[in-house]
Structure formats: C-alpha cells, structure tokens
C-alpha cells in the first residue's frame, strides 16, 4: 500500500508539473492529496493538516535560515541589471584583453560571474549578457556556434559562483556553513572559466585581437567596473571573514549597487520601482516553491515515500561510487526539466536518506569535508545540466535575444564541447576532492567543523 501511494504521489506530481501549471501549486496540491491518502491509511488524523500550516509558517519565519537574504540578493541583481553595468564590464574587459584571441568570449564568461548574486533566479541576467555580447562577438567574426555557446556558458556559470542564491540553498540543505560552500566553489568555477577560455583561444580563428573599438560601443570604464566588482566580492568576503551575515552583506551590496547606479547617473524612480516589484514577485516565486516543497515533502514523509525510494535504490545493491553516480545522474536529468529550486527543495530531500548513507570520509578526509564535496558535486552537476542540449535552460535564454544569424542549433553545437569540459571537471573533482576542499581547508580550518 505504501508503495502504491508513493508511486501515486510521484505520478500525480509529474502529471501536474508536465501539464504546465505552476510547479509550486502542483507540489502543494499533490502534497495535500498525499495527506488525504495518509488520513485514509490511518497514518494521521485530518486535524493534523493544521500542523502542516504551522510547520510551513515555522519554516518561512525561521530566523536561523536567513531567508531574508534571498530578496536582498535578488534586489542586488535587479539593480545591477538595471544599471547597465554588464555592458560596461563587458567592454572594459574586452579592452583589457586586447591581443588575446577570443577576448570577447572570455569577457562574456567573466560577465556571467559578475551577475552571480541572482543568477538562476533572474532569467533576465542571462538575457542582459546576451544583449551585450552577441554583436561584438559576431562582428569580430566569431562563428554563431561559438557566440551562442559563450553566452549560454556565461548564463550557467554564475549559478554556482559566490554569492549565488543557489549556494545558499545548497548550504541549507546539506547543513553546511555558507562560508565553506562559497569557498569550495571558487576553485572549480575558476578552473571551468580557464578551461572554457583555453577552448575559445584554441578554437576561435577570428582576428579580433587588434583592439579596435567598433563604432557605438562603450568606452572602457575602469572605475565603474572596480566598484561593481567590489560590491559583489564584498558579499562572500564579509561572510568568509565573519564580519557580517549573508543578509547584512547583501544589504550592503544593495546600497553599494545603488551608489554605483547613482554615480553612473542612472538612478530613477522607474528603475527603482521596477527593481522593487521584480524583487517582490521573484521572491514570491522562490518561496511559493518552498511552500509547495514543504507541503509535498511532509506528506511524502508521512506516507513513507523516502523509505520506499531508499529500499528501491539500496535494492540494486550498488557500491557507494555507483550510488553517487546514480544520484548525480538523476540530478543531471532532473535539471533538464526542473529548476534548481525544485531539485534542491523537493527531490534532494526525497533522496536525503540515500545521501546520508554515502560514506566518503576515507576519500575526502572528514565527514564535514565529504559533505562539502557532495554539495559541490551536486552544484556542478546541476550547472552542467543547465547547459546541456536539448533542454538546458541557459541555452533557451541564450536563444531568446540572439540575432537571427544565431539559431538554437548553433547554440546546441556551441554548448556541446563546453558540456564535455564540464564533465571532465566533474570527474576531476570526483577523483581529486582537494579541488573543492583545499581552499576552505586553508582558510576556514575545515577539520574542526562538525556536521
């Protein structure tokens, strides 16, 4: 009976989600249906529906989780987006890199990192990069496939670079210190940027290295770029150094970004209004998924769903490496269809018992370090998934504002080598956990932290 209800809940959820109705509503609806099933099975009492509500309210108002940082990071992203800083940084980097083959592709990747705070939540940030980067790349003679691949990669990179919102949820899910998660992602992401850059340098044959600034393009603005970089970098820096919480750092970041916008003469009521309203709606969107995931997970646990899945997976009698491969494979495939929000808030909690029994202490060093490593692997897998044809979301965003000369097929072809490089990096991180662990170990004394 438990198996039937478990499968039933998953099928109802899948059917609802693929109908195209908002995911959060489907999750809540199937969660409530699951609750009714649990009542009918005699597992709970109807009166306990009120406890769901209390749990929900408790989750959303839990000060220990610092959810207030989410709207602030989104607001920071919106203000930066509205400031046109992406364009300035792109052209300034392009200017700085003159002489380097593939400089516009490299600049595109780096701009993606600058927009990290709300990447993966504000789809517009990828569109901003696309609007800025396509024309210089195509004018410089890059093939549509290279330009499309660079824009898509740029959109996917920021999702896992500090202070991305997704990392906050990874830290919450794995119960890790945010500072550790931030530090753990720096080396892999920078390695990825280097690998992508080398790929672009080796494959781009266009003569874009003469340093000529095309008519109508922006002049380099080093001051604006430095302020923007300082604003973004101050967030992970203040958390790692322990001088502020994420909410406080993000708040300072918001005012730093507003200062930048004011200095650039772009501060207006319309821009502020737009940023505030988008922050409100995007925050509601994120937390509606938290609501749906909470209700669904509670019901799923009530009917014994995680236990059923655990038995199925352990029934295959896989060793820990195969189990890890299976979990990451699932995350990769789920990433084609779902946002990181649903994956982290709905699916990973379902598989939590399987994660918990994975023991890689001997491979990584300590239980805490092993969990950091697992979190980094999940983040990298999700990011690879977002870039993988045919469904990766970064590809669609890269297409949305692409010129007519860049087709979706071009973007697919451009992304495939980059995905292969991502898989190479993923394998490297699996084999050499130090790539993830070394930096937090050096700066935060990982050995003394306990789960």
């Amino acid at each position, binding site marked *: 009976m438990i198996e039937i209800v478990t499968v039933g809940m998953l099928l109802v959820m899948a059917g609802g*989600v693929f*109908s*195209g109705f908002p995911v959060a509503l489907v999750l809540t609806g199937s969660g409530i249906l699951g609750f009714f099933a649990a009542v009918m099975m005699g597992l709970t009492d109807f009166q306990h529906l009120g406890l769901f509500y209390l749990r929900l309210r408790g989750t959303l108002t839990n000060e220990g989780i610092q959810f207030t940082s989410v709207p602030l990071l989104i607001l920071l992203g919106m203000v930066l987006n509205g400031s046109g800083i992406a364009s300035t940084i792109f052209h300034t980097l392009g200017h700085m890199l003159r002489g380097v083959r593939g400089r516009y592709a490299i600049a595109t990747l780096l701009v993606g990192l600058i927009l990290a705070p709300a990447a993966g939540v504000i789809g517009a940030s990828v569109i901003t990069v696309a609007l800025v980067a396509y024309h210089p790349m195509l004018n410089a003679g890059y093939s549509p496939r290279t330009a499309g691949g660079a824009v898509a990669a740029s959109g996917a990179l920021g999702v896992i670079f500090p202070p991305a919102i997704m990392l906050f949820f990874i830290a919450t899910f794995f119960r890790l210190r945010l500072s550790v998660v931030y530090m753990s992602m720096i080396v892999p992401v920078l390695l990825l940027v280097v690998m992508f850059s080398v790929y672009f340098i080796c494959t781009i044959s266009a003569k874009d290295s003469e340093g000529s600034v095309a008519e109508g393009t922006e002049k380099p603005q080093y001051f604006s770029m430095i302020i923007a970089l300082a604003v973004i970098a101050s967030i992970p820096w203040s958390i790692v150094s322990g001088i502020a*919480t994420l909410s406080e750092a993000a708040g300072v970041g918001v*005012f730093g970004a507003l200062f930048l916008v004011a200095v650039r003469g772009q501060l207006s009521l319309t821009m502020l209004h737009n940023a505030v309203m988008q922050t*409100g709606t995007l925050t509601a969107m994120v937390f509606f998924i938290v609501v749906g995931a909470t209700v669904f997970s509670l019901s799923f646990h009530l009917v014994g769903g995680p236990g059923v899945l655990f038995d199925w997976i352990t029934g295959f009698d896989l060793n820990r490496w195969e189990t890890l491969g299976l979990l990451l494979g699932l995350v990769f495939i789920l990433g084609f269809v779902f946002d990181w929000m649903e994956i982290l808030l709905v699916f990973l909690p379902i598989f939590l018992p399987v994660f918990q029994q994975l023991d890689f202490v001997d491979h990584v060093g300590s239980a805490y370090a092993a969990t950091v490593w697992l979190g980094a692997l999940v983040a990298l897998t999700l990011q690879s998934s977002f870039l993988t044809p045919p469904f990766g979301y970064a590809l669609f965003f890269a297409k949305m504002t692409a010129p007519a000369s860049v087709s979706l097929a071009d973007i697919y072809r451009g992304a495939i080598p980059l995905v292969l490089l991502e898989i190479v990096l993923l394998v490297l991180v699996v084999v050499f956990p130090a790539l993830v662990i070394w930096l937090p170990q050096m700066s935060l004394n990982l050995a003394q932290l306990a789960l």
Partner: protein
Amino acid sequence: MKNHKNQAGRVETRSVGRGIRAVGVLERVINSISVIVAWATVVPIALFSILQILDRKLKLGVSSVLPDMSTSLLFVMIFMLFGFTYLRDGHVRVDVFHRHWSSRTQAKIELIGCLLILLPLSAVLGFYGWEGLMRTTKFADADVWLARSAGMFGPILLGLSGVVVIVRNISFLRGTYDLVTPLEQTGSTAP
C-alpha cells in the same frame, strides 16, 4: 525548459462583458495592494540589514528586534504577493509540452488547475491563517500581527487572482476574451 518570463502585450477584449470588467477592477485592486506591499517590505528589509550592522558600532539597541521584523516582513511579502505573481505569470512552469499545445488547451489547464488546486489551497491557507490570527493575543508584537494578518489576507488575494484567471479563461473559451490568462497577458498596471 522553465518559464520565468512575463510576456509583453496588452490585454484587449473583443466584447467586454460585465464579468470581465469586474475582474479588471479586481486585478487593479490586487495590483495596487501588491505595489504597496512590495515597497513596504523590500525597502525596510534592505534598510534593516544595514541598521543591523550599524547597531554593532552605534549600540542603538535594535539588534534584538530587527531580525524578527525582517523575517515577519519577508513572510508578509511572500504571502501577499503570491496572487500578484500568479497574475503576472511569474511562477515557474515546466513548459516542455505546454508551449506546444493550443491556446484553448492551455486555457483549460489553467481553469482546471485554478478550480482543483489554487482555490482549495487558498481556502485551506486562508482558514488556518484566520485561525492563527484569532489566536494572536493583544500582547503580541506588531510584526507578529503583521505576519498573521498576511497569513489570512495573502491567501484571499491568491484566491481572488484565481477568480480573475477563471473568469477570463471561461470568457476566452466562450470566445469573448482574446487572451489566455495569465499566460498571454501582462498586468496592465504592472511595472
């Protein structure tokens, strides 16, 4: 693929019936409330985060209050803007199949979803929100009152947004309204 976008476009009606006019007014009310709520929550949360840091230096004595206030304001923002976000098609959808279906099929799905999920959900949330509000004593802090009130009024706004969508999609299916709501519209008063 995930759909985060709000499509541009203007709501146009072939024949504006009484029901459509009424939900138009309702939508404007929801939009106005949401604009006020967004400003009244986003800006203070940002300011409080700064105050929190300043407090460590200036010893204003607000450190114990501000996190509570910010958390309650976040709850107010989330609950009060669910409906507005839905009307602006801001909630994530998995549209791998959905985008290939006809407008009529999309309208039917939205209608069924509203009737089977959104309205019952807003009723359940509203009921427990009401209960929570009734259990709030006069000794509770102002921020608790704010959050508990949002716990009741937010689901009502969500339900009303569902009513807007239901009326418009019924009209669409009957041929008296031109667009599938909320997929093909953007709130006319939206920023």
